[in-house]
C-alpha cells in the first residue's frame, strides 16, 4: 500500500505524513497546524506514500487556490471514500458527505434549511443556556478545570443531543462512544462505529413507529427525488452528524481556549470588547482548523501537468491552505481582528460543512460566556496541552487555572 504508484514521478514524492514527523505525533506543547505551514516553501502539490491511518499514499494539495479548484470539482474528485466500510464490513455512506453531485443536491436541499444561519439563530438561547450551566458548574467546583472533559465535549454533545431530539440524560453514553470513536484504539473505534450505527438504526425504527417533533422524524418522513427515504440513508445522515459535529467542535474549543490562556492580553481585549469574539472565532478557525478534506479521483485526470489516476487519494489539509501567504497576508501571525478572512476551516465547494453555521455559534457562545464568567485564566502550572496530527487534528487535557491556584 505504501509503495509509490508508477504514474507518480520521483521528484514529487515527499517523505511526509500527518501521523509522524514534527508536530504530528502526540506531544505536549505541540503546534500541529503551525508545523505544516512550512509546506508552503515546497512544491504546491506532492505525493506522500504513507499518509493515512491505514497506510495509503495521498497527493497533498498545499495552496488555497488549488484546494478550491479540487473541492469545487466534485465530479472529478469524489467525496465517497467509504469511511465506515472497514468497521462495518459493508459500505454505509455518510450522507450527504459521501454522495457526489448530482445526487448530493437532493440530500443537501433537504438538510440545508435545518442548519441555515437563520435556523441556527433560533437555537441560540438553548445552546447558550447549556454553555452557561456547564461554566457555572465549573466555577462552583473551584479555580481550575480540564476544558475538554468538563466543558468542550459536554457542550458539543449537549448541542448534538438537542438537535437530534434526544434526552440530555444520554450525554454520558454518547460521550463514551465519542471518546472511543475519536480517540480509541483501532478496535475501539470499530466497535464505537458499530454501536453508533446500531443506535441510529434503532432511532430510525422508533421514529417510523412513533413520530415526534425531531430531526430523525423529519428525515424518515422526507422524500428524496419523490421516493421514500430508505433506512440506510437515514442512518447515514444520523451517523454523519455524530462523526462531524462532536470532535471537531470540541477540538476547536480546546485550541481556542489554549490560545487565550497563553495570551492573557487578548483575553482582556475580548472581555472589554465582547463584540470582537465573532471575528476572533474566525481567526482561530483559520489558525487552528482540524479537518483534512480527502477526495478520491473518479477518473484519470491531469492537474497542472501532474498525472492523477482514478482511485488516487487527494488530500486537502485545511490548516495548510489557511497558512497560504498568497491568500492571507502574514499567515502565521494570529490577528483576532483579521479582515477578509476567507479561511477554509469548513472546506470549499458543494460539501462545505453543513453544520458550519451551528459550529460558528457554538464557538462564539463558548468564548463569550467563558470570558464573561471566568476571570483571567492560564495554563495550570504552565503545563501545555497535548496536541496531535492525523486525519483530524486534536488537543487533549487543556488544564486551566485562574485566581489563586487550583484545587
Amino acid at each position: 500500500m505504501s509503495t509509490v504508484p508508477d504514474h507518480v514521478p520521483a521528484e514529487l514524492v515527499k517523505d511526509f505524513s500527518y501521523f509522524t514527523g514534527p508536530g504530528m505525533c502526540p506531544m505536549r506543547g505541540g503546534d500541529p497546524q503551525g508545523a505544516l505551514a512550512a509546506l508552503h516553501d515546497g512544491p504546491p502539490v506532492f505525493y506522500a506514500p504513507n499518509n493515512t491511518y491505514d497506510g495509503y499514499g495521498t497527493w497533498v494539495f498545499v495552496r488555497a487556490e488549488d484546494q478550491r479548484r479540487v473541492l469545487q470539482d466534485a465530479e472529478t474528485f469524489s467525496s465517497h471514500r467509504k469511511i465506515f466500510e472497514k468497521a462495518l464490513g459493508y459500505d454505509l455512506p455518510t450522507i450527504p458527505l459521501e454522495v457526489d453531485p448530482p445526487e448530493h443536491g437532493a440530500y443537501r436541499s433537504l438538510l440545508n434549511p435545518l442548519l441555515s444561519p437563520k435556523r441556527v439563530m433560533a437555537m441560540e438561547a438553548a445552546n447558550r443556556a447549556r454553555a452557561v450551566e456547564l461554566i457555572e458548574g465549573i466555577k462552583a467546583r473551584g479555580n481550575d478545570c480540564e476544558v475538554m472533559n468538563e466543558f468542550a465535549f459536554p457542550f458539543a454533545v449537549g448541542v448534538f443531543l438537542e438537535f437530534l431530539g434526544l434526552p440530555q440524560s444520554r450525554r454520558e453514553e454518547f460521550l463514551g462512544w465519542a471518546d472511543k470513536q475519536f480517540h480509541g484504539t483501532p478496535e475501539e473505534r470499530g466497535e464505537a462505529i458499530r454501536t453508533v450505527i446500531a443506535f441510529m438504526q434503532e432511532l430510525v425504527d422508533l421514529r417510523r413507529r412513533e413520530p415526534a417533533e425531531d430531526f430523525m422524524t423529519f428525515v424518515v418522513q422526507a422524500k428524496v427525488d419523490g421516493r421514500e427515504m430508505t433506512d440506510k440513508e437515514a442512518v447515514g445522515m444520523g451517523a454523519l452528524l455524530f462523526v462531524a459535529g462532536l470532535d471537531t467542535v470540541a477540538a476547536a474549543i480546546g485550541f481556542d481556549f489554549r490560545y487565550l490562556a497563553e495570551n492573557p492580553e487578548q483575553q482582556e481585549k475580548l472581555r472589554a470588547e465582547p463584540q470582537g469574539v465573532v471575528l476572533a472565532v474566525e481567526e482561530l478557525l483559520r489558525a487552528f482548523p482540524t479537518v483534512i478534506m480527502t477526495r478520491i479521483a473518479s477518473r484519470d485526470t491531469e492537474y497542472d501537468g501532474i498525472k492523477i489516476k482514478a482511485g488516487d487519494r487527494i488530500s486537502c489539509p485545511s490548516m495548510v491552505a489557511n497558512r497560504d501567504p498568497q491568500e492571507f497576508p502574514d499567515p502565521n501571525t494570529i490577528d483576532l481582528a483579521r479582515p477578509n478572512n476567507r479561511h477554509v476551516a469548513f472546506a470549499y465547494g458543494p460539501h462545505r460543512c453543513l453544520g458550519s453555521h451551528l459550529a460558528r455559534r457554538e464557538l462564539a457562545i463558548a468564548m463569550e460566556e467563558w470570558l464573561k464568567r471566568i476571570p483571567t485564566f492560564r495554563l495550570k502550572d504552565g503545563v501545555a496541552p497535548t496536541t496531535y496530527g492525523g486525519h483530524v487534528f486534536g488537543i487533549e487535557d487543556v488544564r486551566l487555572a485562574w485566581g489563586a491556584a487550583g484545587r
Partner: protein
Amino acid sequence: MKIRVVKEKCAGHARCWAQSPEIYDLDDEGYILDGDIDVPEGQERAAWLGAKSCPERALVIEDYKKDSAA
C-alpha cells in the same frame, strides 16, 4: 456598481450575508439568492466587503469606482 452572482459556485458559507446583510440576501437553505445585484449608491463599501468575504469567489465585483468606497 454591480455584483455578479455566480450562483453555481455558492456553497452556502453565508459570509457575504454575515458581512453585509443589507446587500446580500439568502434563500431558505442559506444560499445566495440568484440574480446579479445592482448596488445602491452609498452602499458600495458594504457590497465590496461582502463580495470579498466569499471563500468560493462566487461574487464578482463589476464597475467599481475606488473613490466611491469611502
